[in-house]
């Protein structure tokens, strides 16, 4: 719901060199390995989950073009719905054949840098107003941008994970100073 229509398998790919100002995912800028997974294993995991679709974000997904292209090809063969986020603008994508190939495989593409000064937490699936939803299925983008959605996952040990586009009130909601400071970096 937070990252696309229906129940989705969400993958954050590590590494980004775009470094958008105000990015909330700075921990994913580094190209040092985070969780290393064989792509075949990842594919198996995705297909086992029987989700409505796969959403790929980061970091910057296009920083791993070869593996991503392989993965999307495999997912397409299985008829999986694909949603892809990228910080690259459409004109930048058009210069790179592999990027184009990848983006063409996405059923929903959300391209463009995150612009801090255009931040809007009530946008559907994206963080700033300059970012557009490009969809092969027009109906999904007809919904109005008026809802702020946040997902909070409490794991079996009480650890919290907050996803989505929270405003400052989320720190109060979570009462978690260490998490809040990470988010405000």
């Amino acid at each position, binding site marked *: 719901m937070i990252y696309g229509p229906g129940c989705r398998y969400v993958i954050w790919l590590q590494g980004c060199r775009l470094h958008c100002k105000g990015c909330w995912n700075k921990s994913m800028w580094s190209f040092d390995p985070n969780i290393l997974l064989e792509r075949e294993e990842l594919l198996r995991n995705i297909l086992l989950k029987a989700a409505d679709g796969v959403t790929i974000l980061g970091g910057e997904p296009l920083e791993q073009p070869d593996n991503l292209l392989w993965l999307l090809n495999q997912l397409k063969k299985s008829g999986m719905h694909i949603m892809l986020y990228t910080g690259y603008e459409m004109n930048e994508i058009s210069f790179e054949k592999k990027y184009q190939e990848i983006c063409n495989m996405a059923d929903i593409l959300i391209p463009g840098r995150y612009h801090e000064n255009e931040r809007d937490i009530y946008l559907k699936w994206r963080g700033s107003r300059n970012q557009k939803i490009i969809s092969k299925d027009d109906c999904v983008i007809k919904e109005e941008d008026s809802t702020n959605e946040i997902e909070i996952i*409490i794991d079996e040990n009480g650890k919290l994970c907050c996803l989505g586009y929270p405003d400052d009130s989320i720190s109060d909601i979570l009462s978690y100073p260490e998490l809040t400071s990470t988010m405000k970096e």
Partner: protein
Amino acid sequence: MSSVIKTTTPFISKDLLCEALDTMDIHYTIKQDNIITELEDYYGLQMFVYSPELGRYQYQHDSSANGRFNPYPWGMDVNKWGTVSNFLQVVDTEYQNAYKRLEEKKLKEEEERKRKYIEAQKLKIIAKAESKGYSVKETRQGDKTRLVLVRTHY
């Protein structure tokens, strides 16, 4: 010829040792740190004596009660076990069982404490989110709780 020498589990905990004896239906009295059993031999009542130097209990008994005479001729009530060694083997097993029960109990208590904490944490988040104008939908994903907060802006 090589030999195999085995010792019993070191009896460190008085509580566990007493629980083991309870399980075996052995009556005892406690004097200071010593556990005096109802089992008797030539020298009197046998007992577990705590040794601060060793940090554990040692069983004090007539050495002749350890199989040299079988049956033991001086009225020791160890017929059920035959020898002191056999008796201590059973104590050893029951001591370990008591330890396992304690571990399970502690684990269960810890799990319960964690469960209560997580539940309270969840309710707190929901209450705060609702006070900020979010509607909250809760679902379970295996061991995890998933809260979806939605706030619509008109």
